């Protein structure tokens, strides 16, 4: 009777053990690649939101109970050196937090926004990372562009590019303008507004909210740093 229970249990335990061992090897093998992906993603986002800046290391400070990550960068423009700040912020959207990285200059003007992570509805909220692809399949085939080259290479999603040059110190308004058109930009900039994603107000509001919250936290974090050592590249 005992043998009926012990032998199968031992077999199961043995298989579980061997599997775990095998998987730990796979994990060790893939871990560097996974870490590299994470680092590259952050570096890419930093390049996008603070174009032309030399950015220092990440600073992490606890603010209001959660960790706030931000970077300080410098850029030479003529004789002067201007400072830029980038931070990671998030706000609950439809299917979890929508996480973005935002770059602002010293006066609070947004230099760029890059959505890092989202789990919004495909076809609706998820279009916040969609690139306005003007080139069609036929163009690609006819121009004989190799598929590798991907006509969508490094273009910024239209939803995210709207945030550029907006004033983060003022309220960012959300307007419903339907299908996106680059000609809408001048009017929207005047009103410090963005055009919402069609059928995805929750996602749109989440991103706007996260920008406002992040800017407030950045101000707190910077206030906490003075009057100690000046920030910047190490």
């Amino acid at each position, binding site marked *: 009777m005992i043998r009926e229970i012990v032998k*199968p249990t031992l077999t199961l335990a043995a*298989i579980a053990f061997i599997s775990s061992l095998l998987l730990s090897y796979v994990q060790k093998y893939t871990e560097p690649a996974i870490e590299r992906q994470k680092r590259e993603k952050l570096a890419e986002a930093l390049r996008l939101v603070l174009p032309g800046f030399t950015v220092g290391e990440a600073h992490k400070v606890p603010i209001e109970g959660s960790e706030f990550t931000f970077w300080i960068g410098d850029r030479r423009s003529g004789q002067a050196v201007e400072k830029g700040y980038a931070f990671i912020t998030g706000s609950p959207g439809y299917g979890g937090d929508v996480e973005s990285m935002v770059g602002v200059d010293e006066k609070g003007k947004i230099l760029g926004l890059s959505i890092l992570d989202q789990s919004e509805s495909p076809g609706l909220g998820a279009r916040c990372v969609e690139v306005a692809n003007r080139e069609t399949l036929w163009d690609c085939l006819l121009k004989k562009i190799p598929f590798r080259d*991907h006509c969508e290479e490094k273009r910024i999603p239209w939803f995210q590019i709207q945030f550029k040059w907006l004033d983060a110190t003022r309220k960012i308004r959300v307007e419903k303008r339907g299908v996106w058109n680059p000609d809408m930009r001048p009017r929207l900039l005047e009103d410090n507004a963005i055009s919402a994603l069609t059928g995805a107000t929750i996602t749109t509001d989440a991103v706007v909210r996260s920008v406002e919250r992040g800017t407030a936290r950045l101000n707190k974090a910077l206030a906490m740093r003075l009057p100690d050592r000046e920030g910047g590249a190490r």
Partner: protein
Amino acid sequence: MNYWKEFAKGIWKRNPQLIVGLGFCPTLAISTSISNAFWMTVGVTFVLMGSNILVSLIRRIAPSHLRIPIYITIIAAFVTIVDLSLKAYQPAVYKSLGIFIPLIVVNCIILGRAEEFAQRNPILPSLLDGAGMGIGFGLTLFVLSFFREILGSNKLFGFTLIPGMEPAAVMILAPGAFFTLAFMLWGMNAVNSRKRNR
């Protein structure tokens, strides 16, 4: 043992979704784009072949009444390999497939083939059976994704088709999944009944 038959039966005659009726969860959820369909097929076929081989290997020494947990452990191990590999080398695909990668573990097809075939057949036929079933699974997935990607996001392989046209987003969401599969099954039934009536 007709090796070609073991392989080919999974593709049409005993196609997992259309004939046997297994594996609907990932089929409905993942068929939103051809890219998703492709990578899911790769993952499922890899796990299917791997688990079939191993189950066949241990079929004589595995104790009978604990066999399900043992098979599940083996399948889970292979799925974890797929999960880690995609996370490391194809992060965009990993993000797109989401929780359906770990959910390959509970894909009825894999456990079903292990129970029904791999545990009573030698290694090579089991491997072929796994490959065939995986490809058959992928075939259905491809056909569904073809329609849903075009109608639901106005794209094919990620390239926009008709510039300026707003696609019917419902095709990418749950209702579209159900309708597309229903129409496909309806069409198949119609074809089959016409064949019978000849």
